[in-house]
C-alpha cells in the first residue's frame, strides 16, 4: 500500500471533537450551551402557552388507546378473566407477560438515576428525568396487571398483610407475596426519588412562570426551594440517600419477579439463572425504551444539543453489555438442558425451539440476540439515530417475546402429555396490552407538557462554567 494513500486516522480528529477543551473530559452536551440557554430551552417547553399541535395529535391517539383500556377493563370486571385466552394449562398469559415487560422497562430509569449517579456518570443528567418518568409510568402500567389478572380483583387486597377481623394472613412462602412488597417498594422509592430530583427545577419554573396558576402550583410543589447552599446540601444528601436505597432495588425487584418463575417446579421456570438474567433483560429492555422515547423527543423539541449522539452511543453500549448477559442466559438454559441430563429440561428446550409455538423462540432470538448483538458493536451504527430507533423497537419486541416464551412455552406442554394445550390471545388480550401502551403514552405526554423533562439544574452543573476543579480552585486561591 503506497504511503500516499495513508490518511490521518479519522478517529483521532473524531476523538478530539468529542473532548471538551474546557474540562479535558468527554463532552456530554453539545458545545455552545450556557446557563441561560439551557434554562430557556427546557423551561420554555413547559411554560409556553402554545402547545404544539403534534402534542395534541399524539395525546389524542394515546388517550384514545387508553380509553380502549378502560373499555377492556370494564368488560373484564363484568365478565371475568375468561375473556382472555388464558386456559388450562396456560393459566398465565398476556397479563403476566405484560407485567414483567413493563416492570423490566422501568428498570432503566432507576438504573440511570441511581446507579449512574453513584458512579458519577455525568452523561446521565440529560436523560435521567424522563427515564425516571418512564419508570413511574411503566410501574403504573405494570402494577395494574397483578390486580386485574386475579379472578376476583375486588379481593386482591387480601394479598396485603392487613390486620383483619377475619384473622387471615398472606402466605409468605409465595413469590407472588414477595412481588407485592417488591413492586410497592419500588413504586414508592421511584416516585419519591423522581419528585425530590425535580424540586430545584420546580423552583426555576415557579420563578419563570407568567400565569398565576403556574406560579401557584409550581410554588406549591417546589416546597419553598430558594437555591440556598443549605438547600443544595440537603438536596444532594437526599439524592444520594435515595440513590443508595434505589440501587439495590434495581437488582432486587426483577430478581423477585424472576422468583415467580424460578420458585415453581415447572421445567423452563425452575432455574437458578433467572435472577441475573431477568435483571440484565430488564435493563436491556429499559434502555431500549429510553431510546424509543428519547429519539423522537429530542427531534421534536430540538433537544439535540442536550441529548446528544454521545447519549445514544452510551445507551447503545449499555444495551450491548446487558444484551450479552441475556444471550449468556439463553445459552446457559440450552446448555443446562443438555448438561443436566434431565429429560424434563431437554424436552422443554426442544419443545420451546421446535414445538408448535417454536416460532416465538426464534422471534426472540432474532430480536434480542441475532440482530442487536451483531450490530451494536459498530460505533457508526450506534450513532446512527434512525438505526438506534429501529433497534430500540426491535429489542422491546424481543424482550416482550422473551416473557411470552418463558410464560407460555413452558406452560403449554409440561409434565403430563395428556394436559398439553395451546394458547391463542383474544382481542381482549390485545386491547389490554395496547391500552397500557396508550396509557403510558398519554401519561408521558402529560409529563412532557407540564414538567421539565430534562433536569435543568443538573445540566447547568455540567456546563464548563460550573466546573471547578480542585486544581483550578487551588490556582485561584494562590
Amino acid at each position, binding site marked *: 500500500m503506497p504511503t500516499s494513500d495513508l490518511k490521518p486516522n479519522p478517529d483521532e480528529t473524531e476523538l478530539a471533537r468529542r473532548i471538551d477543551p474546557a474540562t479535558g473530559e468527554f463532552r456530554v452536551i453539545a458545545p455552545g450551551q450556557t446557563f441561560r440557554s439551557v434554562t430557556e430551552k427546557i423551561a420554555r417547553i413547559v411554560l409556553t402557552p402554545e402547545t404544539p399541535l403534534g402534542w395534541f395529535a399524539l395525546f389524542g391517539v394515546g388517550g384514545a388507546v387508553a380509553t380502549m383500556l378502560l373499555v377492556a377493563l370494564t368488560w373484564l370486571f363484568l*365478565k*371475568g*378473566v*375468561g*375473556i382472555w*385466552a*388464558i*386456559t*388450562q*394449562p396456560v*393459566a*398465565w398469559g398476556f397479563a403476566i407477560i405484560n407485567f414483567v415487560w413493563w416492570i423490566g422497562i422501568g428498570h432503566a430509569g432507576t438504573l440511570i438515576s441511581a446507579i449512574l449517579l453513584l458512579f458519577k456518570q455525568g452523561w446521565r443528567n440529560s436523560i435521567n428525568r424522563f427515564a425516571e418518568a418512564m419508570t413511574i409510568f411503566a410501574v403504573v402500567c405494570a402494577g395494574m396487571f397483578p390486580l386485574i*389478572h*386475579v*379472578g*376476583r380483583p375486588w*379481593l*386482591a387486597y*387480601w*394479598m396485603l398483610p392487613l390486620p383483619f377481623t377475619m384473622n*387471615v*394472613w*398472606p*402466605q409468605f*412462602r*409465595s*413469590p*407472588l*407475596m414477595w412481588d*407485592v412488597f417488591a413492586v410497592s417498594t419500588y413504586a414508592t422509592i421511584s416516585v419519591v426519588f423522581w419528585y425530590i430530583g425535580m424540586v430545584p427545577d420546580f423552583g426555576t419554573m415557579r420563578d419563570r412562570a407568567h400565569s398565576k396558576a403556574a406560579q401557584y402550583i409550581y410554588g406549591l410543589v417546589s416546597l419553598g426551594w430558594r437555591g440556598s447552599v443549605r438547600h443544595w446540601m440537603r438536596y444532594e444528601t437526599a439524592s444520594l440517600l435515595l440513590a443508595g436505597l434505589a440501587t439495590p432495588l434495581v437488582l432486587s425487584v426483577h430478581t423477585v419477579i424472576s422468583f*415467580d418463575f424460578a*420458585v*415453581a*417446579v*415447572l421445567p423452563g421456570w425452575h432455574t437458578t439463572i433467572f435472577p441475573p438474567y431477568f435483571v440484565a433483560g430488564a435493563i436491556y429492555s429499559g434502555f431500549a425504551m429510553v431510546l424509543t422515547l428519547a429519539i423522537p423527543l429530542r427531534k421534536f423539541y430540538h433537544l439535540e444539543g442536550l441529548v446528544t449522539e454521545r447519549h445514544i452511543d452510551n445507551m447503545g453500549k449499555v444495551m450491548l453489555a446487558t444484551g450479552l448477559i441475556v444471550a449468556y442466559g439463553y445459552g446457559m438454559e440450552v446448555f443446562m438442558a443438555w448438561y443436566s441430563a434431565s*429429560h424434563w429440561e431437554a*424436552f422443554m428446550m*426442544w419443545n420451546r*425451539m*421446535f*414445538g*408448535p409455538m417454536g416460532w416465538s423462540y426464534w422471534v426472540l432470538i432474532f430480536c434480542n440476540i441475532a440482530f442487536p448483538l451483531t450490530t451494536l458493536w459498530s460505533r457508526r451504527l450506534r450513532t446512527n439515530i434512525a438505526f438506534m430507533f429501529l433497534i430500540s423497537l426491535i429489542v422491546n419486541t424481543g424482550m416482550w417475546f422473551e416473557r411470552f416464551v418463558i410464560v407460555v412455552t413452558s*406452560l403449554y*406442554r*409440561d*409434565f*403430563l*402429555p*395428556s*394436559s*398439553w*394445550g*395451546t394458547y*391463542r390471545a383474544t382481542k381482549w388480550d390485545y386491547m389490554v396490552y395496547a391500552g397500557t401502551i396508550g396509557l403510558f403514552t398519554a401519561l408521558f405526554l402529560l409529563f412532557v407538557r407540564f414538567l421539565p423533562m430534562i433536569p435543568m439544574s443538573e445540566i447547568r452543573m455540567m456546563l464548563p462554567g460550573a466546573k471547578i476543579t480542585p486544581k483550578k480552585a487551588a490556582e485561584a486561591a494562590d
Partner: protein
Amino acid sequence: MSGQKMKENKNTTGAEAAAGAEAAVLKGHDFSRAANDPKSMGALAPAGSSSPMTLAAVREELKAVKGKKYWRSIDELANTEEFQAAVEKEFPSAAQEWVDPVTRRGFMKLMGASMALAGLAGCTKQPDEPIYPYVKAPEDLILGKPMYFATAHPFTTGAVPLLAKSDQFRPIKIDGNPEHPYNQGSSDPFTQGTLLDLYDPDRSKHVTFRGEDREWAEFAQELRLKAAASKDGTGTYFLSSTITSPTLARQWKAVQAAYPKATLVQYDPAVAGTALEGGVSTQYSLADADVIVSLDADFLSGAGFPGFHALVREYADRRKNPEKLNRLYSIESTPTTTGLKAEHRLGLRASEIPAFAAELAKAVGVAGVVAPAYAWTDEQKKFLAALAKDLKAHAGKSVIIPGIYQDPSVAELALAINAALGNVGKTALVSGETTSPVPSDQLAGIKSLVADLNAGKVDWLVILNANPTYSAPADLEFAAAFEKAKTVAHLGSHVDETGQIAHWHIPSAHFLESWSDARAYDGTVSIVQPLIDPLYGGKTAHDVFQTLLNEPGLSAYEAVRETAKSTIKGDFETGWRKVLHAGWIDGTAFAATGSAAKALSAKVPAPAPKDALEIIFRPDPTIYDGRWANVGWLQELPKPVTNLSWDNAALVSGATLTKLGLEEDDIVELTVQGRKVNAPVIVVPGHPDNSVTVHLGYGREFAGRVGSGAGFNAFLIRTAASPFYATGSIKKIEGKWGVAVTKSHFQDHRGARFGQQGTGNNSLEADEAINERGIIRYATLDEYKKNPGFANEGENHPSTDKSVTLFPNWEYNENAWGMSIDMNSCTGCNACIVSCYAENNIAVVGKQQVRIGRNMQWLRIDTYFEGDLAAPRAHFQPMACQHCENAPCEQVCPVGATVHTPEGLNAMIYNRCVGTRYCSNNCPYKVRRYNFLLYSDFETESLKLMRNPDVSVRSRGVMEKCSYCVQRISAAKIDADKENRPVRDGEVVTACQQACPASAISFGNLNDKQSHVAKLQSDERSYQVLADQNTRPRTKYVAAVLNPNSELQDTPVEHSPVKG
C-alpha cells in the same frame, strides 16, 4: 356411602322409610304444617277436590301473577293440596277468591294486590322466597342427614338397580345398589346422568293439545272414548320405546285383551334391528373365563352393552391379580376401550366381522358353517390361527362375546362357538327368558306402522317415550307418514321433534318420579321406586294403558304391586316392604335353562369390497340415542377413545384421512343411498381403513337449551335396510367445524420435523408418557414374573424419598387418606367422571369453553396411544388431584387458599381464593380447574334442587379441584366420633370409587396398615406418577400387567419394555 353404612341406615330407617316413601311420594309431602292440621284439611279438601278444573285454571293465573319465580318450595312445585291449604290458611280472604271461578273483578283485585306487594318487596332487602320452616318435622327427617332409597334405572338393555340418596326429599345422587347381585353398587355414565335429566329445566311442563294447555283428564277421556267407540281398538296404535317393565307388559296384555285390534309397536333406535330387540337372553360370566374374545363387542365402556356392570366387574376382578390374569382378544371395527384394553386387537371393517366370525367358528370346529370367501391378509390369518388355538386350549374356560351392533349372524356364530367349546353353562349362560317381556321385531314393527300410517289406517297414534320423527330410519320418511294419522299423542319428557308436531303432548314422569318395575341383565325384577313427586305433573306409560282398562284411575303404584303379587312369595305386605327396602324381588333371576343348540339360521353376509367406503352407525357413548342430548354432564363428558365433547364426528383412520386429502376438523359430506349429511372429521387411532364411524344421537333440533344444535344428525343417512353399517361415500366440503377435543390431539404433534422426538407414526404424548416420564408403567406377565418390582426401578422411576425436603415432615398420627388406582382394571368408561359431577356440583361450561381447554371435570381419564397409530394399544389413566404431601400448589398461593389438612388432604378454600392461578401453573398434574367465567348456574330453580348441599357451588374467579370427597370423609368421621371409634376401612367411599364398575379405585386410611388401600399402596407394582418431582402424591397407581399370547407377541403392538 359404604355398604356397611348403608346397611345401618337402612336398618334404622329402611322399613319405615320404604313405607313412608310410599305415603310421602303418593300423597305429597305429609310434613307441611297444613297437612297436619285437621281443621284446615277438613275445611278445604272439598273445595280443592270438587272443582279441580277451576283450581287448575286459577293455578295458571297464579303462575302468571308470580312472574319469573315459578315455584318456591317443593310443596308449591308439586302443587299439592296441602300446599294450597297452606296458602289459603295464610291468606284466608284471598283464598276464597282463588277457589271461586275467576271473575274480572276478582282478577283485578288480585292483580292490584300483587302489584302493591311487588312494590313493597322492592323496598326491603329480605329474600323474595318465603321460608317455610318445619313446624312439625317429619318423623324420619333429620336435616343434613340424607336418606337412601332403593330404586332402579330402567334402561333399554336392562335395568340398573340403584340406591338413591335423598336430601330433604330431593334425590341428589344416584348410585348402584351395593347389595344387588348384578351391579353390586356400580353404575355407569348414563345412569349417573339421569339425575340431571330429572332436574332438566327444559322438561315439558304441561299437557297440551295443539299448543294449548289442557288437562290429563281430558286426554284420558278422549283416548278412552275413542277406543270404546272403535269397539275392538281398530285404528289405535301405540309406538313405545322398548318395554322392559313387567307391569307395563301386563297392562298392555290387558289392553290387548280388551281391544284385540289395537297395535303396539316398539322402537328403540339403538337396538332395533339387532339381536337384542327381543331382549337379552344370553348372559356371560367372565369369572372363570381365561380367554375372552370380543367380536365387535364393546362390553367394557358403556352401559349401552347389556350386562356392562357385571362384565366389567368380572373382567376387572381377574385383572387385579397377576396370578389370575385373563386374556382378552378383540376383533372390532370402531375402536373402543374394549379393543384398546385387549391384549390382542384386530381391527377389521364392520362388514368383515361376520365373515371372520364364521372363519373362527370353522377353525374351532363348529359344524355346518359356511364362511364367505374373502382374501384375508397374512396378519389376519395368523391372528385367526393363534386365536383358534388359544380358544381350543381353553375350551370351557373361554367366552366369545358378540357385538350388538353387528349382523345377527355374529350373535348366532358366537353362541355356536361357545357351544362348540363347551362354554355354554359355564361362561355363557343361555336363558329361556329375555329382559324384554314383550319381545318384538322392532324394525319390522316400525315399517308396518309407517305402511299403516300411509294407508290411512291410523286414527290414534300414541307415542310413548319415543322420538320417531328424529330417530326412525330415514328411508321410512316417518315425518311425512306422521301427517296422515288423525290424532297423534306424544308422551315424552321434552317437547322434542315428535312432541313439536304431535297433536297432544303429555309430560312424561322421570323414573325417579314414578312407580314402575324393570328387569336387570340377570333377570331380577327391580322395583322403580319414586323419590319425589313429579316436578311437572308428569304421567307414565302405565297411566296411558291404564286409561283403557277397567279402573282408569288406578295408579302405577297399585299396578306395580299387582304385578309383584305373582312373584313375591309369602305374606305380600311384608314381602313388598322387603322388596322396596332391598330394591328387587328375590328369586326372579333368569335360570340358565335355555338351549344353545339352535341351528344357524342366518346366512353369513359377505364382506363389502375392500375399496368400498363403509359407514358404521353406533349409539353415542355419552348421550346414547339422543335421549340424553340435553344432559350437560353427558354432553361435556369426553367420549372414550376420542376425547371428543359436545359433538359427534366422522371417525376415520389416519391413513383414510390422508387418502381422502382431509385434515382433522374439516367438514365432509357423507352420502348413503342419496341421503346426505355434513359432519366434521377426526382421526381415531386403530380405526379400520376405508371406513367411517358416526355416532347417533346428535343433531337434535328440539332437545333443549343444552342439546339443540350440537353435532350432526346421523339418523338422516341411516336406513332400515342397513341400520348398523352401510356403504356410502365421503366428500370434502368447504370450511372447518370446530370440534372440541379435551386433550391435545396427537395429530397436531406428529411428524418428523427437525429435532422431533420419537418416530413419525407414534403418538408423541404416549412416547413421552410411557418412556422417560414413566407416567404409564406396565409389563407383560413374563416380564413381571422376572422382575416384580419393575414399576419402581430405573433412574426416572424413583419412589419418594422423605428426607429430601426443606421443611420438616408432618407427622400423620390419626388418618392419612390415600387412593390407589388399578391401571389394569380401569376401562375408561367414564362413570367416575359423571359421578363426580353429581357429587361435587361441578359446572358445565359449554362447547366453546371446552374447545379452549376450560372444561371443569375434577377427574379426567388420560388416554395414551402406544405404538403404531394404525394398530395401537391405549392406556387409560384416571387423573385427579393427587393430594401431594409436598404439594407445589400450596407453596405458591399468596393468600393461603390451598392448604394441607392434618390428615393429608390438599384442601381448597374457595372463599379465600382470589384467583391468581399460580397453583394451577405449579401443579405438575394439571388437575386444578378454574372458573374463568361464571360457569355455575345460580339462576335456574330446578338445578338448585339437585345440588349436593354438602358442597359449595363455586363462583367466578375461583380455583377448584378434587377434594377426595372431603364431605364424605367428614360425614364418616362424625359417625365414627359419635361411636367413639376410628373410621373403619371402607367407610369412606369417594364418588368416583362408588361409581366404578371395575372397582379400579380404592380409598382409605394409609395409616391403617390393614386397610385395602394401604395394602395396595405397598404392593410392589404401585407407583407414583412424577415421583421424581418429590411431590409425594397420596394417589398411587398400580402398574398394569398384560397377558399376551406369545404367538402374537409381535403383533399388533410391539411392547417397548419399561426403561430403567
